[in-house]
């Protein structure tokens, strides 16, 4: 069953700025959907429209089969974890968790058992009587999640919840959130600008750009067959190499180098190749590149090289001999992607 | 981004009602009344009011008594503001630098803030009293025969001294908190770049304090013009004949003692315009301060 259905949602601010330009997304039961995109792409706005913190200019938000456009946030059966946690600083952890339930006139016994359960699940039972200011960043993060869990909502909304944590804690919490969401079997929307977070956590990724959906798909789909150059450059690190070229009967012409290519399309295209799908060889007779700066990352290295006038990055296992001078470039043809240069869409 | 807000058709009005009612009754109404009656000549005995246009303003501005008062007010304001700012800054700079006893100094230097202007006036009256005042004796050491309440300038001097004394703690508190908000990294960088402490103060610290100082200057002008009423009222006692007074005091005297409602109102309106001008300057400064940050 579909938990949340966003139908053609638009958001136009009073000053005329259009933050969300007709987005449709479905969130299935128990599914974790990640909205990812650069800042200003409308991902947070869209989340806040689901939460009821922003009004919906056009379109429908349907939660568990009911249109909730005009409902107050509290009446929507959602729970949200904020970027800066937004814990109530003057209340103890217990009161923070209980506040929403109290406002909904939940019986005290019920409140207590729900708070205790959530605390146990998140391992914050010993902090229940502390104030948020006495907790570490990671602990606050758990309290914020606890506040969401006790509500037993139809859907969790996460608004960049890990961006205030340091890198190590972030990786750990990422995993925990994913596990927790799976064990609770509750649908969730997770907003982030970090594509690694998106790839690792999502059941389904929604790539947003400039208020529009670029692509919706599983992490593998979004990575393996990006629909547009935007998705291609945004998902995956280091990003995909994108080089302008021209398709003709002879093949693909990139800055003077002509590559064999069996495509029907003719005209200007963008040629895309993931750094990890290219290989450097000592035979420079095919496609020749000039090796530039080499960055060692430990297990792998990034080799920056020059193909005609264009920059190109290739990843390489650190065990291989250090490349230098002029070398050949190889790739499988199925790994090369072609995009229409005007629309940016995949051919 | 703006605050997310509630929308309720009646609640904001309910919340604002007490404030707006008080403002309407005790503020807008009197202010309108002041402006209205400044254009009328009221007969105190028969209660008849005649429209006289700007006569009240002309009379006020051209009267020799008013001009004399205005000059004294200007002098009084400038001296009180500058001297109390200067001393406040001097004490603050020292208090910022000492390590031992800082909080004790702070407490003792800000104590006087709590004293009401008329109470300061009363203490001034005693200290400058012809019979018992030690400050009169002190002036006599220099051959100055101070006669408060008799000699115009002697009285004025006493007023300036008392009003300044009362205002020093205020400036001290603001300057000290301004000094303490200068990041220690800036102070350390300055001490590496410039050896002379004196130079460092005038080239680094003082420019950083400048926004605070301008801002305080306006507050001090407002204080000297309006809040010194009590001090002046006690020092002139009930014989304001040959004593210097400020414009605010004159509004009060002409209106309540002299029963010249129209004239007093016209003077009120002139003062309102002065405050308006000061406020505009003040807001310009605040805007500029925002740019600094």
């Amino acid at each position, binding site marked *: 069953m579909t938990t949340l259905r966003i139908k053609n949602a638009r958001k136009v601010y009073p000053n005329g700025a259009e933050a969300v330009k007709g987005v449709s997304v479905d969130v299935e039961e128990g599914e974790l959907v990640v909205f990812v995109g650069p800042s200003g792409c409308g991902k947070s706005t869209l989340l806040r429209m689901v939460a009821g*913190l922003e009004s919906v200019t056009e379109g429908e938000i349907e939660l568990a089969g009911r249109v909730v456009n005009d409902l107050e946030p509290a009446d929507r059966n959602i729970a949200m974890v904020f970027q800066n946690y937004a814990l109530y600083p003057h209340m103890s952890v217990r009161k923070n968790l209980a506040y929403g339930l109290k406002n909904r006139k939940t019986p005290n016994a019920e409140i207590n058992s729900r708070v205790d359960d959530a605390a146990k699940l998140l391992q914050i039972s010993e902090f229940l009587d502390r104030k948020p200011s006495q907790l570490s960043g990671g602990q606050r993060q758990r309290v914020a999640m606890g506040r969401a869990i006790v509500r037993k909502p139809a859907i969790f909304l996460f608004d960049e919840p890990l961006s205030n944590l340091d890198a190590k804690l972030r990786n750990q919490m990422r995993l925990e959130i994913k596990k927790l969401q799976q064990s609770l079997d509750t649908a969730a929307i997770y907003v982030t600008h970090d594509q690694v977070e998106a790839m690792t956590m999502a059941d389904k990724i929604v790539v947003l750009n400039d208020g529009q959906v670029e692509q919706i798909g599983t992490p593998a789909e979004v990575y393996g067959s990006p629909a547009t150059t935007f998705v291609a450059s945004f998902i995956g690190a280091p990003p995909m190499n994108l080089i302008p070229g021209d398709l003709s009967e002879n093949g693909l012409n990139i800055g003077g180098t002509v590559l064999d290519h069996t495509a029907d399309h003719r005209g200007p295209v963008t040629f895309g190749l993931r750094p990890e799908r290219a290989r450097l060889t000592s035979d420079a007779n095919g496609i020749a590149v000039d090796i530039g700066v080499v960055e060692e990352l430990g297990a792998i290295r990034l080799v920056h090289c020059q193909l005609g006038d264009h920059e190109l990055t290739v990843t390489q296992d650190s065990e291989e001999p250090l490349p230098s001078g002029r070398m050949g470039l190889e790739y499988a043809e199925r790994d090369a992607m072609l995009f229409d240069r005007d629309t940016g869409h995949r051919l | 981004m703006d605050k997310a807000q509630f929308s309720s058709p009646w609640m904001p009005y309910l919340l604002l009602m007490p404030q707006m009612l008080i403002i309407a009754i005790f503020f807008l109404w009197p202010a309108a009344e002041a402006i209205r009656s400044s254009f009328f000549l009221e007969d105190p005995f028969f209660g008849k009011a005649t429209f006289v246009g700007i006569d009240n303003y002309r009379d006020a501005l051209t009267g020799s008594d008013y001009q004399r008062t205005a000059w004294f007010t200007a002098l009084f304001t400038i001296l009180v503001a500058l001297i109390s700012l200067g001393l406040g800054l001097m004490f603050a700079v020292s208090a910022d630098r000492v390590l031992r006893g800082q909080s004790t100094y702070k407490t003792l230097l800000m104590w006087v803030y709590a*004293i009401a202007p008329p109470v300061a006036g009363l203490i001034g009256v005693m200290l400058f009293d012809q019979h018992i005042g030690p400050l009169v004796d002190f002036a006599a050491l220099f051959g100055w025969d101070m006669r408060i309440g008799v000699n115009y300038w002697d009285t004025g001097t006493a007023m300036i001294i008392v009003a300044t004394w009362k205002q020093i703690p205020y400036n001290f508190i603001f300057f000290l908190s301004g000094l303490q908000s200068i990041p220690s990294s800036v102070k350390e960088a300055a001490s590496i770049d410039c050896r002379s402490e004196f130079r460092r103060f005038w080239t680094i610290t003082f420019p950083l304090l400048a926004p605070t100082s301008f801002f305080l200057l306006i507050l001090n002008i407002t204080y000297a013009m309006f809040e010194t009423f009590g001090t002046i009222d006690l020092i002139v006692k009930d014989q304001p004949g040959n004593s210097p007074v400020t414009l605010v005091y004159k509004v009060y005297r002409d209106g309540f003692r002299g029963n010249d409602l129209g004239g007093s109102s016209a003077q009120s309106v002139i003062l309102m315009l002065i405050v308006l001008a000061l406020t505009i300057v003040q807001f310009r400064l605040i805007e500029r301060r925002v740019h600094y940050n």
Partner: protein
Amino acid sequence: MATTEIETDVPRAKAALSRKSFGGVRVYDHIVLWVGVFLMMGPLIVAFTTSTFDHVLIHKEGMQLGWGGQFMETYQTVLTQQGGFTGEVTGWLMTQNSFVLGIFFALGKIVVSMLAAYAIVYFRFRAATFCFWIIFLTLLLPLEVRILPSYEVVQQLGLLNSYTGLILPLIASATGTFFFRQFFKSVPNELLEAARIDGAGGWQFFVDMLIPLSKTMMAAIFIIMFVVGWNQYLWPTLMTTDETYFTLVRGIKQIMQIMIGADIPKYNEALAMAVLAMLPPALVIVIFQRMFIKGLVEQEK
């Protein structure tokens, strides 16, 4: 250019060094501060010590330092002796009135301005801008420049010689509203959003979140406003002719004139009255020094 600057700097730097280092204690600064303390506290100490002496002695020999031994007698007289023109008012009654004015002025100001600031910051409504400017207008016109018409209004309302007439007009100025507006604006927006998701309505958010969060601010404002209220002079002078409504600060001129008007002026009693009038506000700001400074400095931002 640079070299000459360095050269001229050397003697000054040396002077600064010699001024600075005396066993690590900064002699110059301590001297300045001692002079400051002498200037600020000296008059108060003389006022207090003189008030403990006998008035005949003061009349003959001037103001006194030291302990005069008449402390109890003088202060008891000032507090309990029925004085004034009507002979109804005592120092004790005036002290009580001062407390009433200080406390209710501060409370009234906090309540009124918090409600108004809450409406302005957290509600979207049509008259918001209009109300904001009306409130702003009050900053432009201090009571001192509109005393006469204010007096007439209060007179017409029949509020002369009443606590209401004494306190309400003083609350009209909007300093407190701006203070709380500034503070509310600094409260993170997410807190409101979290509370809304938790089902808090307009009034609930105010009571459950803003009031607890504003506690320190309220205390700071209370301290400042108590001092401001206690120290009111002009308005009480106009408003209260009935001596049973006199505050210490209001009554001080009349009392002084009666005491000094005697054959041998009762300087000691006048000064004792001044000490009584300054002690409570001074103690309040000294005890709550930190909070007071915070409130004062933030208020002007």
